[in-house]
């Protein structure tokens, strides 16, 4: 089982893609997804603190990730 995770900006550069297929069983937690992403090629370039959104809302490490959720890794924002 796996979760597709959207990545942006410097994180997209780190993984060389805009969507990363993360091998983790669902349902799981945001923390589980992050842990699995760090093991992937390019994952070592992620910073220690990561922000994740689930279904367009900022999520906590313990937030659940279910099948079909849209999960995104949010780099430090720099709009404006």
């Amino acid at each position, binding site marked *: 089982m796996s979760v597709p995770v959207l990545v942006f900006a410097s994180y997209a550069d780190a993984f060389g893609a805009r969507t990363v297929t993360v091998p983790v069983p669902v349902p799981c937690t945001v923390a589980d997804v992050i842990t699995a992403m760090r093991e992937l090629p390019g994952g070592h370039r992620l910073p220690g603190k990561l922000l994740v959104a689930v279904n367009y809302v900022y999520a906590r490490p313990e937030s659940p990730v279910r099948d079909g959720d849209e999960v995104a890794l949010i780099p430090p*924002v*720099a*709009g404006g």
Partner: protein
Amino acid sequence: MTVSTPDALIEIVGAPIDLTRLVAHVQHAGVGAVATFLGTVRDVNDGRNVTGIDYEAYQPMAEAEMRAIAAELGAQWEGLSVAIVHRVGTLGIGDVSVAIACAHARRAPAADAMRTAIEALKVRVPIWKRERYADGEWTWVDPTRSSGSGEPA
């Protein structure tokens, strides 16, 4: 008669932003003050010569966050009308990256809401920018890392 407050105009766009469209959106007969903000690409940042900026957004979430900001402003200042439009893609020096318009019967709420909107946008709306420099280098801007020599506009 004072008409009802218009819904917020919230957009991520790929083309140049027309400020007059935002102003027209927030204006109605009960408005006495419109405060606007434009973010523009400037030629120097952190002491480096900038030649352009590429903006990237997580569009559905960015629009959701901007809509949430507008709703929070409207809850804080009754009768406020709000427009927030952010551009993505490749921008050159002087191009407008973001435009905000806040209108209210009185000037203090309009001005305070405008200021609150741009501060909120900069900390929570998922948009990123890659600065291109005259020496050919580029970098994703990370406002959480202080540079000592300056900060984004």
